[in-house]
């Protein structure tokens, strides 16, 4: 590369105005109404009376240039050469000619093999993380579990049969890049990190000691090497040290398990944002299709569909019926591990006599 002239730096975000469908550009800030024609298809009406149809298609997020080009081909044919991706890695094709909706949907299905849906009270695409494909920390894969789950849930993507939108995410380690969701799958470790003392980076030592939230790591010397040791009794297996220093290995293929969390919500609607909470733990890390995870998610979804009132998100439904009923209706066990510990624990206890009996 040494001969190459450097390209311009620090250009920032591309000019979006050049990327807007003409109807979007024209009616920017002047939309007045939307309606769902059918699952996966919305129509937006502008002050001008213009109508913009949008067809939402589920993507696997990770795509080859071939697939990207197929998407572009379709957008060129039906959407004046524009398209967008949604916050949940769906592809959105917008068009102004109503009569093109059917042919467009046909093209999406046959040429891309992407399902159409993810709108309204459906299950949209599952947010997921890098997993074994690219991250250095994962204890499981995320894309594989998502593919398996979505195979199972495809009807729920293509229809709008829930009390409200259902957002699902999976993460491949406890760091949880997948964020809080109505339903989230994450990993748990079950013993303290093992240390590769031969390989400890001196430069990392102070950082790795500092990052432990419970001060379980202390400097030590093994075989004359500066290294660290972990106080087993204190360690809560969080893996923060592992992220800081790869010689602290937190993962264990034999003992790592998956767990499912429910009720995370970012929307400020009604009760506002809320963190997700533990529903089921101890599911096996079972590639390639993690059937136990799909089953448990399905169990939660069925109970939610049956018990939720319109507009209640998963967490709001559980809040209303109470956790006791949640466990009754899903059949999962409530254990002492479901009870929060740590500094904020008291705030999660039932500080009233409000109980369902």
């Amino acid at each position: 590369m040494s001969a190459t002239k450097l390209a311009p730096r620090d250009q920032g975000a591309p000019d979006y105005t050049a990327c807007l469908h003409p109807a979007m550009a024209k009616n920017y800030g002047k939309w007045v109404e939307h309606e769902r024609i059918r699952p996966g298809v919305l129509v937006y009406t502008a002050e001008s009376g213009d109508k913009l149809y949008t067809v939402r298609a589920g993507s696997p997020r990770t795509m080859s240039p071939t697939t990207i080009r197929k998407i572009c081909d379709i957008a060129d044919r039906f959407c004046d050469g524009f398209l967008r991706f949604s916050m949940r890695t769906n592809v959105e094709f917008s068009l102004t000619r109503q009569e093109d909706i059917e042919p467009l949907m046909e093209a999406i299905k046959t040429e891309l093999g992407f399902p159409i849906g993810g709108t309204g009270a459906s299950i949209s695409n599952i947010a997921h993380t890098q997993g074994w494909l690219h991250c250095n920390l994962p204890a499981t894969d995320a894309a594989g579990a998502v593919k398996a789950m979505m195979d199972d849930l495809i009807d729920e993507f293509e229809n709008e049969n829930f009390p409200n939108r259902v957002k699902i995410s999976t993460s491949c380690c406890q760091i949880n890049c997948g964020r809080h969701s109505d339903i989230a799958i994450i990993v748990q470790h079950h013993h303290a990190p093992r240390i590769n003392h031969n390989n400890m980076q001196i430069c990392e030592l102070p950082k790795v000691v500092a990052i432990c939230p419970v001060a379980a790591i202390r400097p030590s010397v093994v075989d004359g090497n500066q290294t660290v040791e972990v106080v087993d009794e204190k360690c809560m297996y969080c893996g923060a040290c592992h992220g800081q220093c790869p010689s602290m290995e937190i993962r264990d293929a034999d003992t790592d398990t998956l767990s499912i969390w429910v009720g995370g919500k970012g929307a400020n609607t009604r009760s506002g944002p809320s963190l997700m909470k533990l529903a089921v733990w101890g599911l096996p890390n079972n590639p390639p299709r993690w059937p136990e995870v799909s089953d448990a998610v399905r169990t939660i979804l069925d109970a939610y569909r049956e018990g939720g009132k319109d507009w209640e998100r998963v967490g709001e439904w559980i809040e209303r019926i109470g956790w006791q009923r949640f466990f009754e209706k899903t059949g999962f066990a409530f254990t002492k591990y479901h009870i929060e510990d740590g500094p904020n624990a008291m705030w999660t206890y039932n500080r009233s006599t409000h109980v369902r009996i």
Partner: protein
Amino acid sequence: MAKKKDDKGTNNPGLNTPLLDELEAGPWPSFVSDLKQWSKTKPQVAQLLNQLEESYENRWNYWTGTVLNVSGYGGGVIARLSDKADKYPDLAEFHTIRIIPPPGFVYSTERLRNLADICEKHGAGILQLHGLTGDALALGFDNEGTFAAAEDLMANGWDLGGSGAALRSLQCCVGQARCEMACFDTMKTSRFLTNHYIDFLHRPEFMYKFKIKISGCANDCANAMIGSDMPIIGTWRGPMQIDHEKVAEYIEEKGVEHVIDNVITRCPTHCISLKGKELVIDDENCVRCMHCINVMHKALKPGKDQGVTICLGAKRTLKIGDTMSSVIVPFLKLETDEDFENLTDLIDRMWEFWNDNGMDHERIGEFIARVGLGTFLEGCGIEPDPRMVQSTRTSPYINFEELAPGDFEGEQTQQPKVWNREPESRESSS
């Protein structure tokens, strides 16, 4: 040095209380007027008022605490010595005796007069009915007077209340004696627990104080939820009682909007709906908060299958900040002897675990905050129940004993990855 009772008031300087006198004006009954009057009978009360006047003037307090015990008891007396004993010799010892009142604060005039008589006889005779924990407080005894009063009280069927690191005197609402909301017998429960645990009340040997307060229903008129380590609160299971005719009458009288605004929208779980002139309650989701019953108390009543919810942990803010009571037993019947045994069995186990593992001055709520509710339940042999929590945990870091490596068959196969490369930090050339 204790003085003879007869000495009291010798050289009494006379009242000089210009500031306190300002508390005699106004329509609300004045404790100052009452005590001034009383000081004619009990001269030491004049000294008390004079010292109080100095407190008002200097915004300063002149009492020092000490310890005084009646034979066989480790508590019940709040002993005070005046810093101004030179000036007010009758305040040199000026103690309060805590006396267990009849549960629910019910008195025959015979009993109440008896109390007043004894307190007058042996001390300053000032009564406070009642202290915030629920004792009858009698103020103003010197050491000898304290001992004499205690004997006299006990000879008359009274007993000392709690203080220090002990079970404290219990408090309960009037309950079934006069309230249709009451879901169990608060007075009986209060007396039963007091007498069953009287040893723990009188001889402090806990980690720290322990208060039990008892309310007949979730309205919690006994201030149990915020004022006691262990609130016992009446409740029911199954549907509440609805008198549909009276519901219709109520709606007729007050109008639909009133019912929506005051009942329907106020239910914490939104489990009530209005179908014409009928209230429909989704009983599965009623959390027995009492609100709708309070509003429509002629039409709605607690259900028939009654019992209690037991909570644990409230205290005020010292050290770790306020703790609030949280559910420990969602529902317990409290009628038969066996039911009461279940209750004491539970309390025994909780006390044992707390006192075996607690720290000095650590109330049970602080103890639970420190060790975690999960550990506490396990230590007491109580099954975890989702009704104990408002929500399950948010922190993903869990110490799963069941899944510790030892419980897995065979050896750990995966060793730490050998990370044997120097970390590279590169920049594109030029």
